[in-house]
């Protein structure tokens, strides 16, 4: 018994047939957007050229930069008045990306999430504490709607405020938590400090996502909370959460192939790679109405697993994401691009030429981000108040952009080694 027996237990053949049908429809629909019309016309491709799955590779890739260029509504395939929700994902200042949903899209998305949650054992009557931030980030509302659709009792508490989180878990007898793995570790320590054994909370499961973590961390969390911990895969360009989820075997997420066609490509050449080989995940959404995205370069490095899952579902699984094809950082579960920070620093005249971003995880499992900046000689007038103002200005501007409060360290000019490429400007000391 599953949320959607028919779809979840389709044979490979049935999945391919459904994908073909939906791909053809999606391509026709996508061609109505300014963006895809231009993209297709440029390479002389007509929607009618896409007849089956093997034609997919004729379609040019869509990248995050494309989404930025199409900001805000260049990719819509429906009238703007039919859009009922906007989400936006982090991007460089002023160049965010927009994901638009029709009423039907919201419902489809909720259904995918409900399917995931049902698969891991959530039922009506369970209490679901959603400890991810709400707002433009899709992780909060995506799970919220999915859990409500399933019929669970949702506590939309959002992130942070550990004492309140713990009180809610105790008072409402929460059964499932949606939480970042590092925060789950932090919360467990606070619970123990309160004299409570996390095992005694009676949790049925933890849903962890938004942040890379090792299998060792999962095992540790399962031990601490005495419940299964499930990995989730999603990205806002593909609705958000609910793209893929681990089943009861907790051995990497199934991607819902009735909604998403997955490919692995060589991140350098863009050529398709066979199942089992590590490369960049490319996803085509085939069950979206307002803003379908074709062959989206996720920048996530992973592989498609060849072996069948014991659960009986034929929806393909992807391996754990081993890295990124770009320099995106995930801090406290929030996606941060070093270029966002650089843009801000370079717009502040008191900042010199070099900077360094240091990401670390404290003993209490909370991520920290420290920005070390060289100050510009010509703005030093010998006053401490002036230095303090510079520091606050940098801190404030960065917090506004990335939603994380950074620590700022002011340095003398030439204190940092001159940077050769961006990579050296980021130091990640976290042990995942």
């Amino acid at each position, binding site marked *: 018994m599953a949320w959607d027996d028919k779809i979840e237990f389709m044979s490979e053949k049935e999945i391919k047939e459904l994908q073909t049908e939906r791909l053809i429809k999606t391509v026709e629909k996508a061609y109505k957007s300014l963006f895809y019309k231009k993209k297709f016309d440029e390479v002389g491709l007509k929607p009618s050229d896409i007849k089956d799955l093997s034609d997919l590779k004729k379609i040019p890739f869509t990248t995050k930069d494309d989404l930025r260029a199409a900001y805000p509504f260049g990719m819509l395939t429906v009238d703007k008045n039919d859009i009922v929700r906007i989400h936006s994902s982090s991007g460089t200042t002023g160049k965010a990306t927009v994901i638009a949903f029709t009423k039907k899209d919201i419902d489809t998305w909720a259904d995918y999430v409900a399917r995931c949650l049902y698969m891991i054992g959530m039922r009506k009557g369970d209490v679901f504490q959603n400890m991810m931030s709400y707002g433009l980030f899709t992780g909060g509302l995506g799970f919220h709607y999915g859990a409500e659709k399933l019929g669970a009792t949702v506590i939309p508490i959002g992130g942070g405020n550990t004492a309140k989180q713990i009180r809610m878990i105790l008072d409402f007898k929460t059964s499932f938590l949606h939480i970042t793995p590092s925060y789950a570790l932090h919360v467990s320590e606070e619970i123990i400090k309160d004299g409570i054994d996390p095992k005694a909370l009676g949790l049925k499961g933890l849903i962890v996502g938004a942040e890379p973590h090792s299998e060792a961390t999962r095992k540790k969390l399962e031990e601490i909370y005495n419940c299964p911990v499930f990995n989730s895969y999603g990205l806002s360009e593909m609705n958000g959460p609910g793209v893929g989820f681990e089943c009861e075997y907790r051995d990497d997420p199934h991607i819902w192939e009735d909604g998403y066609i997955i490919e692995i490509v060589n991140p350098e050449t863009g050529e398709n790679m066979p199942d089992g080989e590590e490369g960049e995940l490319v996803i085509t959404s085939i069950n979206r109405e307002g803003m379908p995205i074709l062959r989206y370069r996720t920048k996530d490095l992973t592989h498609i697993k060849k072996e069948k899952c014991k659960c009986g579902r034929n929806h393909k699984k992807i391996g754990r994401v081993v890295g990124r094809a770009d320099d995106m950082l995930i801090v406290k579960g929030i996606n941060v691009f070093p270029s966002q920070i650089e843009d801000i620093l370079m717009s502040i005249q008191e900042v010199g030429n070099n900077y360094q971003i240091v990401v670390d995880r404290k003993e209490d499992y909370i991520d920290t981000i420290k920005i070390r900046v060289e100050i510009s000689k010509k703005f*030093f*007038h*010998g*006053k*401490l108040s002036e230095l303090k103002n510079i520091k606050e200005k940098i801190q404030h501007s960065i917090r506004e952009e990335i939603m994380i409060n950074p620590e700022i*360290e002011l*340095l*003398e000019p*030439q204190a940092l080694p001159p940077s050769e490429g961006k990579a050296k400007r980021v130091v990640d000391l976290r042990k995942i």
Partner: protein
Amino acid sequence: MIKEISIFVENQKGKLSTISKILGDNNISIKGFSVDDTGEGYGIFRIVPDYWEKAEELLKKDFTISVNNIIAVKVEDKAGSLYKVLKILSDNKINLEYTYLLANSIIALKVDNEINGIKVLKNNNIELIENNLMI
């Protein structure tokens, strides 16, 4: 007018000794200094050298520095003499940003309005030091 050199320093070992060594090696005498530490990893080291132009020349290449005007006054070595100076400033609504001791019973005063500061101190017969070499 007395010239003071402010040097931006990260709280790292050896910084102050490096600066004093450079000046000492070049026969520049530090007539007084202070350290403003923010407790946040950086601070300002202030010095009043006898040959300030030469000191500026030596330091500006490798350090973030700023040369500013300060007032230096001679105070008698007896009870109440510091108060006398500070009271003149406050009576005349001149704000003192910071102060520290120089050699030979002279104090350095950084005020928000130097011209007025000098004027009111002179009017009250406080002995002002004219330049760095006279400290």
